[in-house]
Structure formats: C-alpha cells, structure tokens
C-alpha cells in the first residue's frame, strides 16, 4: 500500500485521506447491509468526517490525516527521511548534514560530567577551594602542552552554521486539494510538503544545536577555543584520566589509569602491579576492560583488552555519565580490592596454591616487603584490609 500506487484513487475530505476499500465479499456485505451508512455521493464531508464514504460508486475508508502523516514521517520511515535529508544538504553543497555543535552530546557528557568526577581541582591545605575554571584552565594548559591527537575539522568551519537552512529559497507550501486524487498526485504533493517540512525541521535543529553549543561554552567558563580544540583533537588525559576517540564515528574510550599498586597473597608476600588503563568503550555495553596487555588474578589471560571479571555486575547497556563512572569504579575496585588472598578468588591465585586457569604467573611481580616504594608509602598494598 505504501507508497501509494500512482493510479490508486484516493479521496481527501474533511482533513482526512480516504483509501478505497479493497473488495472483500464480507466487507461488501457489511457496507451493503440494512442500517449501513447510506452512500452520500455528494457533497464529500467537510467538518465531521465519517468512517466510510461512497463516491463515484466506490467505498472509501477513513485512513489518516496528511498533516499528521507529515509530522511523523521521520519516525515512520527513518531511512527514507535520512536519505531525503542527505539529498537536501547535498543540493546545498554539503557532503553531509552540517551540525551546529562543535562538541557532540556524547563528548560533552564525557567532558562535563565524567572527567570532573576523577580530576582533582581542590587544594588540600585549603578546604573548599577549587572550581570549574581551574579544571578548564588545566585542560587548556594540557592541550597546549600535548601535541598528540589528530586534528579533525577546522573549528573555524563552524562559523555561520546557524544560518544554514535559511539559505535555501522558501518554498511556498502547497495545500492538498480536497476531493478526488490519484496516488500519483498525492505523492507529488507529499514530496513537496516533505521538502518544506524537512527544511523547517533542519533549521530548528541547527538553531537548537547552536543554542546548546553556546550553553556548553558558558559551562566551560567561556573557553570556546579550548572546547573547539578539544573536539578537534579528540583525546585528552589529565591526572591519569582521559578519553580517546574510537574510529571516525562518535564513539570514545574513556579510561582511568590504575597507577602502580600492590596486592598481597595469603603468605603476606607483596606483588607490584604496573600501571594500566581501566577503560570503558561507548560502543557497546559499559563493561570495564584493561586496555593494555595486562595480567591480574581477575583477568583470564595476559593479553590486551580483557574484560575484568566482576561478580554481580550488570554492565549498563546505554551510555550515560553515571553508567560510565559506575563501570570505571567497579573495574578499578575489582583490580585494587577484588582479590581476596584468603579465598584466592579469580582465574588465578597469586601464590600458585589456588586454581590457575591460564598458566599466568605473577612471580615476576613479587617484591620484598621492604621494597622502597612500599616503605616510602608511594605504592599502596590495596587488598590488605581483609
């Protein structure tokens, strides 16, 4: 039935499109039964639309409002709508639909909600101090210092994006004529109306995105240049906390470094674990992994990108600041505090007395109890509280 056949007879009356009732003996009996709606050949209903009408000897049934159909077209046919959107912008010289945002919503969540949770701004000796401005100054300094990360779009290209959508000529909206139509006529009208609707929606979207962008700049203490640079660089690390863009799409790896830490075994011997990045990817479920090649009693192998084995943890499926923070915290907590030297839980035990599912040995991590890093308090043995 969709798109309507060019020869399909339709009726537009009282704000509704009526579709012809398909021939069905049962329906024919019902509409022809005594008490059924009498066929008002003319005029077609104007104000109170009837469910059925008969015109030119044919039965029609009330189907939909063309205006409502227009308004929800992008939901009913998202792929078609997306195609039309691309064609719309290509016709105006853009390879892809432009955006009024320099920083995507996802990246904004990472920058404004996730990183500040893990980055310190307070001064210990003076409780209560520290502010967002301090954090943004640090980000600016870090970005000036760091030359790594590849550059994306030139931020200056963003100038004037808010004007787009007004550039095209205003197409006058054509009203759908009342009365009898063919499917082909309806399609012509629909395409024109959709183009008009699309232009209005795109203009609204760009205006909204520009507004959001301005709010972001305000939240970043007015440091628009730092924000644009951050979006172009696509990577940042401060105090062992950071993010990296994954591929070309709007996906990121968000991580926090463990730093060096120690774990003890059941004999009180200490093993020093190297720094590694506990990371969460926004691509799939938010399950924490160790990004580098790493070994730990809660990791199955000595390999890269291994999921940390965590009991009773349901990885959030949807990206959110809370979900990422929880996942990172759970991953870090598992590495630091999750190995119980009495139970020797996990895939491997540090002291080789428990189970060992992958032949992973930690002997090379073993250090003397009076190792200077331990005695000097620079490295904590994190599972010594059990």
């Amino acid at each position, binding site marked *: 039935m969709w798109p309507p056949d060019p020869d399909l007879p339709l009726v537009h009356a009282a704000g509704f499109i009526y579709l012809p009732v398909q021939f069905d003996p049962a329906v024919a009996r019902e509409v022809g039964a005594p008490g059924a709606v009498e066929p008002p050949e003319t005029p077609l209903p104007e104000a109170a639309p009837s469910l059925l009408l008969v015109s030119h000897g044919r039965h029609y049934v009330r189907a939909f409002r063309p205006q409502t159909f227009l308004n929800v077209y992008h939901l009913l046919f998202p792929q078609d709508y997306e195609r039309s959107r691309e064609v719309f912008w290509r016709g105006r010289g853009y390879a892809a639909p432009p955006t009024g945002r320099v920083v995507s919503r996802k990246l904004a969540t990472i920058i404004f909600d996730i990183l500040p949770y893990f980055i310190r701004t307070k001064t210990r000796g003076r409780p209560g101090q520290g502010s967002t401005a301090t954090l943004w100054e640090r980000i600016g300094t870090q970005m000036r210092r760091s030359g790594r990360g590849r550059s994306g779009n030139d931020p200056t290209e963003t100038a004037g994006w808010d004007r787009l959508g007004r550039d095209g000529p205003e197409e006058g909206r054509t009203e759908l004529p009342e009365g009898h139509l063919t499917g082909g006529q309806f399609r012509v009208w629909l395409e024109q109306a959709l183009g008009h609707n699309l232009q209005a929606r795109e203009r609204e979207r760009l205006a909204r995105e520009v507004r959001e962008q301005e709010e972001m700049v305000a939240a970043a203490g007015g440091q628009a240049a730092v924000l644009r640079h951050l979006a172009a660089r696509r990577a940042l690390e401060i105090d062992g906390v950071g993010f990296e863009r994954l591929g070309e799409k709007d996906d990121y790896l968000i991580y926090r470094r463990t730093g060096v830490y120690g774990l003890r075994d059941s004999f009180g011997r200490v093993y020093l674990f190297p720094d590694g990045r506990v990371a969460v990817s926004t691509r799939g479920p938010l399950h924490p992994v160790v990004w580098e090649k790493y070994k730990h009693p809660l990791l199955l192998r000595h390999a890269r990108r291994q999921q940390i084995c965590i009991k009773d943890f349901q990885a959030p499926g949807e990206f959110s600041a809370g979900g990422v923070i929880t996942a990172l915290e759970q991953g870090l907590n598992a590495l630091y505090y999750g190995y119980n030297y009495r139970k020797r839980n996990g895939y491997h035990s540090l002291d080789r007395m428990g189970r060992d599912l992958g032949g992973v040995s930690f002997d090379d991590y073993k250090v003397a109890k009076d190792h200077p890093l331990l005695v000097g308090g620079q490295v904590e043995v994190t*599972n010594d509280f059990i």
Partner: protein
Amino acid sequence: MAELELEVREHKPHVKQVVPLVVEIMPGQASEGLLDTLAPGTYEGLSVRELCEQILNRGGWSIEDQQIIDDIKRQLAGGKLLCRGKSSEGEAREYATLEVTEAGEQYYYVPVRAIKPQEGG
C-alpha cells in the same frame, strides 16, 4: 619490573608533630571528597574510622558537601572505609603524610576512601 617507573624516594619515619589534621573522605574512586581540618588535640587517641564517623555525623555542611556525604553513605551501605588500602582502625598518624600549605604551614593529611569492595571472579 621494567614497567614500574616510579621514582623511589627516601623514606623518612614519622616524628610526632603538633599540627592540624586534614581528613579527606572520598566516595568510591572520586578524585575529591569531603575535606575537614581537625585541630591538634582533637584527633589523637581516636581511630580514623571514629574520626570519619564524627565528621560525617556533624551538621552544618554546604549543599555541595552534603551531596558528597550522601555519596559516601551510599558507598558505606555494604562498604567500608579504607585508608591507603588498609582498614581504618588505626590512629590517623599511622596513615598520615606531613604536607605543607603554600603559606608554609604544616599539616597531616589522611585520605580515606569509602569503598564497596568489588569481589572479582
């Protein structure tokens, strides 16, 4: 241990000082927590856990601090207070580092984490 790149510092044993104590209670792996400064003479003889309980039960916190307290209490439901990877039953000075403010004033600093230890495997 080639991957360990920390610089080894010379360990200086603690000498008792009459200085204020700054306790910071951090919820989970947050970088910042609730900071409180205790005057000399008010914290000796008490364990870090007891000091933390006193701090958390005291009123008069700002809204921002109250949110941190709520986060700490959420972690402590089924969790515990850990001080440098150990339980917080010892006295503050056992875990403290001696630090100096920009103005040159000395103080002890004790970081405490309210953690729900996540058992793995």
